[in-house]
């Protein structure tokens, strides 16, 4: 039998049961559409997250105290809640003298009760240097940042996040007013620009920034750093800078065995790789859930095809009597099921694209989220291949049942 004839025969019989064909297809349409939507949302979310991380600055290197074992992505000791005191001013100084480093910003971090008048709120504060604002890309919206002089002299000044400003001061202008952090008084010199929650979960909106030494001595009572952020000199390759930092830290800390490093270096690339991995896994996970509906749709097709085979027993008998081979019959029913899933798949892709576009429109128009419209071509190709395979996988059993029918019994079938 010519494929053209087989195709025509199949489309004719599908067209005869239009309602049934459409309902059968619906399972595949929904399945494919949800795979498309979830893969596309996953892609968009990934783009969004990666863009935010990149927004921090791609030439930053984070030095965290404590080794992280051999794995590139394993958590450093400091992140596991262990207090490590190895990162000190001597290290920051060594970085500042290193030509491939353009800035080294130590940070100490703690939590305290922030009080103004009768208002108080629990906040996270960062003790740091004046370079923090430039390196971290956190500009001040109102007032001024503290200066090198403030940092060196241990001035009691603070820059606060815009959310905290509203919480503590309401409609008042916070500039020049004094707040207390754990009984230590600071004069507010500036308010950060509104930025929301930045990457790595730092709530910029409610942050308090104070000079490093004041935070170390008066708030925390420590001499070491929570971390050091290094801005690489753009003239140097970031991996070279990383190797220089490693060298300096090993020298300062007298480490000879690289396996016993008491620090962990994380670059933007590491962060991007980790986040990319996490979001990819999430996307795959979402697609896997969506594909369950595809399986359900496929079973629906198998079910309807089995019914069709039974209903058309006499037709099969007749076709065999006038010379159709088992293969001809198998082909006819397989083409029908593949047509159902393939057409269903295409409608599903179109529906998915429509919904993805709608989500993009709603998010960007009404929520002003920097949502990226992503419609991955791989998802489309995958969807078409999967729907075709589903047609064969779920159609082969009914088609075989049809092909195996004995023509004599089939012709007698009432």
């Amino acid at each position, binding site marked *: *039998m*010519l494929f*053209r*004839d087989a195709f025509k*025969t199949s489309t*004719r019989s599908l067209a*005869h049961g239009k309602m049934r064909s459409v309902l059968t297809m619906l399972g595949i349409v929904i399945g494919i559409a949800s795979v498309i939507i979830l893969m596309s949302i996953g892609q968009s979310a990934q783009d969004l997250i990666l863009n935010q991380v990149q927004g921090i600055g791609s030439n930053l290197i984070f030095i965290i105290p404590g080794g992280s074992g051999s794995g590139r992505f394993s958590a450093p000791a400091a992140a596991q809640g262990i207090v490590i005191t190895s990162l000190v001013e001597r290290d920051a100084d060594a970085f500042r003298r290193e030509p491939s480093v353009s800035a080294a910003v130590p940070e100490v971090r703690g939590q305290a009760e922030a009080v103004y008048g009768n208002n108080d709120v629990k906040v996270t504060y960062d003790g740091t240097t004046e370079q923090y604002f430039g390196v971290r890309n956190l500009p001040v919206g109102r007032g001024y940042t503290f200066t090198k002089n403030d940092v060196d002299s241990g001035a009691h000044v603070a820059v606060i996040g815009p959310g905290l400003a509203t919480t503590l001061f309401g409609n008042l202008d916070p500039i020049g007013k004094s707040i207390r952090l754990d009984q230590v008084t600071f004069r507010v010199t500036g308010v950060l620009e509104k930025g929301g929650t930045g990457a790595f979960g730092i709530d910029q909106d409610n942050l308090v920034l104070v000079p490093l030494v004041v935070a170390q001595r008066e708030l925390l009572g420590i001499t070491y750093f929570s971390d050091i952020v290094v801005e690489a000199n753009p003239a140097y390759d970031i991996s070279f800078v990383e190797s220089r930092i490693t060298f300096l830290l090993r020298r300062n800390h007298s480490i000879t065995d690289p396996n016993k490093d008491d620090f962990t270096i994380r670059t933007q690339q590491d962060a991007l790789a980790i986040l990319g991995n996490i979001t990819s896994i999430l996307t795959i996970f979402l697609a896997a859930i969506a594909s369950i509906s595809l399986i359900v749709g496929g079973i629906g097709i198998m079910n309807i095809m089995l019914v069709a085979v039974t209903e058309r027993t*006499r*037709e099969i*008998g*007749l*076709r*065999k*009597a*006038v*010379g*159709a*081979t*088992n293969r*001809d019959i198998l082909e006819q029913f397989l083409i029908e099921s593949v047509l159902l899933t393939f057409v269903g798949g295409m409608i599903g892709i179109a529906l998915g694209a429509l919904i993805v576009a709608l989500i993009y429109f709603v998010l960007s128009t009404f929520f002003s989220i920097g949502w990226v419209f992503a419609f991955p071509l791989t998802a489309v190709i995958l969807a078409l291949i999967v729907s075709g395979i589903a047609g064969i996988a779920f159609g082969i059993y009914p088609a075989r049942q049809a092909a195996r029918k004995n*023509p*004599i019994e089939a*012709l007698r079938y009432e």
Partner: protein
Amino acid sequence: MIEVRDLQKAYHDEGGSTNALRGVNFSIDKGEFVSIMGPSGSGKSTLLHILSFLDRPTGGSYRFQGRGIDEMSDLELAHVRNKDMGFVFQAFNLLSRLTVYENVEIPLLYADGAPAQRRARIEEAVRSVGLEEKIHMEAGKLSGGQKQRVAIARALVTDPNVIFADEPTGNLDSQSGLQVMEILDALHKKGRTIILVTHETQTAEFANRIIRIKDGLVESDAPVAAKHMHNAPLK
């Protein structure tokens, strides 16, 4: 053309075995019009199924156009059914949602040959049963007699050597039945071999030879003496 020697067919099931055919012998030449008669359960349907390659015997030999059924694969049988045999059934077995044209086309879908030549053959076959005006009508909307004529056109379209007709008048009134038999008779006169299974004597007598089957054996095999009773009612 058809040569049957000691043909046997046994069915096996849990209750034991049934011998539907127990050693049938006859031969049919090209151009003959043969009726196979017998009461129900005589084995005549089994015989027709084997003659028309829908089933295989369990013993004896059957040669069709010089080739033994045992030497042929299922694929070859399907090919011969398509090319050399035409089928007319009691229940018509038309696909009611397809048009007359599409129904007649079905055997050609499984034949070799260019699709371009189909149209002329289909139109010719439909014309020969006098339904050219209904060629694009859905088969389901035709009367019983018209349906059977479409079925005959479908059997003719591949220009087969033999037409097997299994109780072709069984579902028809006498008028339509007569019409169908006249078409078969005309086909025979043009040189086609026709093998008819029926239990109606008057229908059987359109043939020039009647083979009677009883209990899986040939009871009698004789020419029809006084042929043609066209003007007499069939029932």
